[in-house]
C-alpha cells in the first residue's frame, strides 16, 4: 500500500476519504498484536500527504484528524523503562538527545573543531 501510494498518489486522491478511514480504523483497534501495523497505517497517509500536500492544506479537519491519529498512537506506545529516572551505572549511556527525528541514520562522528555530538 505504501509503495502504491508513493507511486500512484493520483489514483488514491479520488478515494482518499475511504483510504483515510481505513487507516484510522486500523489505528483505532485496541490491543493489536502487531504494533508495526499501526505505524504502517500512519505511514500510508504520510506518504500520500508528501505527494499530494494540497489535500491537507485545503482541509483543516482532515489534518487535525490525522495529527490526532498520530498523537494517539504515540500515547498508546508511550512507556517508561524502570531505570529511566536513575539509569543503571556502568551501562554505556548515549548522552545527547537533542536530535531531530528526521535523522534516520546515526551520524558518524566527524572531524571538526566543533564539540563532538553523539546522536542517539
Amino acid at each position: 500500500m505504501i509503495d502504491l501510494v508513493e507511486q500512484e498518489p493520483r489514483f488514491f486522491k479520488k478515494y482518499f476519504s475511504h483510504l483515510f478511514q481505513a487507516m484510522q480504523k486500523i489505528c483505532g483497534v485496541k490491543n493489536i498484536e502487531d504494533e508495526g501495523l499501526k505505524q504502517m497505517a500512519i505511514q500510508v497517509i504520510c506518504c500520500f500527504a508528501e505527494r499530494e500536500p494540497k489535500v491537507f492544506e485545503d482541509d483543516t479537519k482532515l489534518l487535525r484528524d490525522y495529527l490526532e491519529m498520530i498523537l494517539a498512537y504515540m500515547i498508546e506506545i508511550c512507556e517508561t523503562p524502570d531505570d529511566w529516572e536513575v539509569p543503571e551505572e556502568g551501562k554505556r549511556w548515549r548522552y545527547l538527545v537533542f536530535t531531530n527525528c528526521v535523522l534516520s541514520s546515526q551520524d558518524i562522528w566527524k572531524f571538526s573543531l566543533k564539540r563532538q555530538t553523539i546522536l542517539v
Partner: protein
Amino acid sequence: MKYGCSVIDRLAGCIGQQVVLKSLAGIVQQMLANEDWRFRYIGLMSLSQLGEHVELNDMTPVIEIASKYFKDPHSKIRWAAFHIIGMVAGDCQPEFQTRFHQSIIPALLQSTEELVPRVLSHVLSCLQNFVEGMPEECTPPYIEPILNTVFPIVQNGKFKIVRESGLTVISSLAEASKTNFRPYYEKCIPYIYEMMKTYNKKEQKQIRGQSIECITLIGNAVGKEYFAKFVPEVVQTLLDITKNDISADGTDPQRSYVLSGWQRICVTLGEDFIPYLDLILPSLLKLVEDVIGNAPQEDNDYSEYTMPEEKKTKKERMDDIHRVNYNTFDHEEAETAINMILVFINELKKGFIPYVEKTTEIILKAVTYTINNNIRERAANCLPLLLEAVKESNYEFKDQVLVKMAHMFIGSLWQEVQKEFDPDTIMAQVVALRNCIDVCGRFMTQQELDDLSSKILKLLAESDKRKTEMKDMRQLDEDEEDNHTKTLEQEEEELHIGIADLIGVLFKTHKEMTIPLVNILYTQVLTKVLQPNMSDKLYKFGLYLIDDMIEFLGIELIPELWKELSQVIINFANHKTSELRQAALYGIGLLAQKSPAAFGDIADVCIQKVVDSFKIPKGNEAEKLYQYSLDNSIATLGKIMDSHSNKVNVPVLAKLWFTHLPLKKDKPEAHQQHEMLMDILLKGNASMLLGENGEGIGHLIKIIAQITDTKLSNDKIKAKMSQVLKSLAQGPTQALVEKAVVGLSELQKTRIASLLKM
C-alpha cells in the same frame, strides 16, 4: 515516540509549518489539560519538533508553554519541557539565544537543583545546547555563574550521566565564549587534566574522552599563548593514552576524542605544533600504508570493481554506482588518519615540508585505492594542500618541484576520474584537480594544456552520455524507480558544474592559451546547453562557464564572442530560479567591470534588468538561495555605479543600492559592497546616501549594527565603520544617531558601543 515525531516533522515539511503548527497547537492545548501524564508528555514532545521549520516568533508561545512545566511534579513532563528548550536552542540559534538568554540561563541554572538524575542530565544537555549557539558577545556575564554551578556537579556528581553532561556544558561554554574564557581557564584545566590523566577504568572511558575534548576546546578558545604552559603535559598524556589505553577493537569511545583532540591542538598551536609532528605523523602514515598496502589488488578478489566499462550493461553500471564499499574498521581508521594528515598539512603548510615526500608517496597510493571510496576522496583532498606546502616553502628548487608534483598529481587524478564509479568521488577528484591547478598557476605548455582540455571535454561528453542514457532508461523502463535515476541524472549535472569550475580555473591560470578550448566550448557545448527546455542545472553550468570567460579572459581575448555572451547573461538576469539569476547578475557586474567601453551600449538594459530583479518574489525556493541572488542584485548595482559613474545616473542608483543594503549571505560580495559604502561616506559623499537632513542615518546605523562582528564585515570595514560612526555621533547628526540606536537589539547596541570606543 520517535516515529510519531518524525511523521509530524515530515508533515511540517510538506504541508507547511504554519498550517501544521496551528492545528497541532489546538490539539496540544487540550492534551496539556489532561490528567494522564502521557497526554501532557506527548503533547509537549510533539511541539519540540517544530523549531526546525518555523520562525522564532512562531515558537515563542511554545517556549512560554515549556517554561511553565520546568517544575511539574512529574519527572517525564519536566524532561519534555527541557527537551523543547534544548531543541529550539539548536534549531533557532543564534536568534533564540540572543533574545532569551536573560530568562533562559538563570532558569536552567536554577533547575540544576533537580533531584532526578535523568532530568538533571537533560537540564545540563539543554544548557549545553543553549550555550553552544550563543554569540560570543552574549557570553561574558554568564561564564562565572555557569562555572560556579556546573563545575561542582562535574566534580562531585554522583551519577555518570550527570557528570558527563556537565562536562559538555563547560566544553561548549569555552567554545562559545572564546577569549572571554581566559580569566577562568587556569582554574578549570588542572581538574579536567586530572580526569584525563587518571580516569583509566573501563567505565570512565567516555568521560575521559570528553575531558580530552574539553581541555583541547579550552586551549582552542583561549589561544596558544595562554594554553602553552599546559601543552607539554597534555600532549604527553594524549600520547600515553594513544599508546596504552585505547582498545584495538574500534569500540573505545576515547579513540575519536583523542584524534580530534590532536587536530585541535594542531590548530591551536599552529607552527608550534611542528615539534610534536614527529611523534604523531609517522604512526598515522604507517597506519594508512598498512591498510592500503595489505589490500587485495584489482586483478584478484576485487576484479568486479574494475570490470571494463564496455563489458558492462547499463544496468550493471547503474548498480556499480550504488554498490556498497568494503567498509571495515581498518578503512575507517585509515580515513580518519588521512583526515588528520589533511588538517596537519593545512595548518602547518611549509612546516610540513620534511614530511611531504613520504606523505606524497602514501597519499598517491591512497588516491588509487580501489576498495574504499572515502579513502580515495580524502586522499584526493590532500593533494592540493601538499602543493601549497611546497609553494609556501623556501626550498631552492620549489618551482621545478611544484611543476613536477602537479603533473604527477594531475596524471594520477585523471587516471582515477576515468575509472571512478562513485559520483561523489568523481566530484572530489575534479575539485582536487581544480585546486591543484589553482595552486600552481600557469605551469602547462600549450601541448599539455590542449591534452588536458581534450580530456576534460571527453569527461564532459561521457557525463552527458550517461545522463542521456539515464533519461532514456527512465522513459523506457517502467519498473525502474523514478527517483533513483532522477537522482543519478542530477548527480551528473552536479558533475557538469564541477567541470565548469575546473575549466574556469584553466581560464584563470592559462588565459590566452585556453582560446582553442573556448572556441570548442562555445560552438559545441554552450549552444547546446543553453537551448530552451534544458534543466536549470545545465543552464547553471552554462552560465558559470560564461561568467568565468568574462572574468578571467576579458573582452580583449574574446572580442568576437563578447556580444553573444553578454546577451545570454542579460537574458537570464530575471530568471525565476534564484541560482540562475544570481549567476547572471554576477555576470552583469563582471561585464561592467571588465569591458568599460563596450558596457556603455548595454548599460541601460542591464540596469533595468538589475532593478527588475529586486521585484522577483521568492516562491518556493530556500531563503538562502533567494538571498544570495538578492545580494548579487545589490552588488551588481554597486559595481555598475563604481565603474560607470560618468555614464549612469548615480544618485538614483545609489539610493536604490543603499535602501537594499546590507548584503546578508554572499561573504566576498558583502565585504566589497560594505567597504564601498563606508568609502562613499568617508569621501564626503554622505548626503547622496543619507539625504540633506540625515534621513538615511537610521538605516545606516541598522546596517552597521547588523554586520559588525559578523562574516559580512572584516577588520578593515570595522575600522572604517568606527570612523563613520564617530563622525556622525557628534555635531548636528548626534541626535539622529542616538534615536536610531534606541530601536536596536541589546546585541546590536553592544556592537555600536564597541565601534564608538575603538
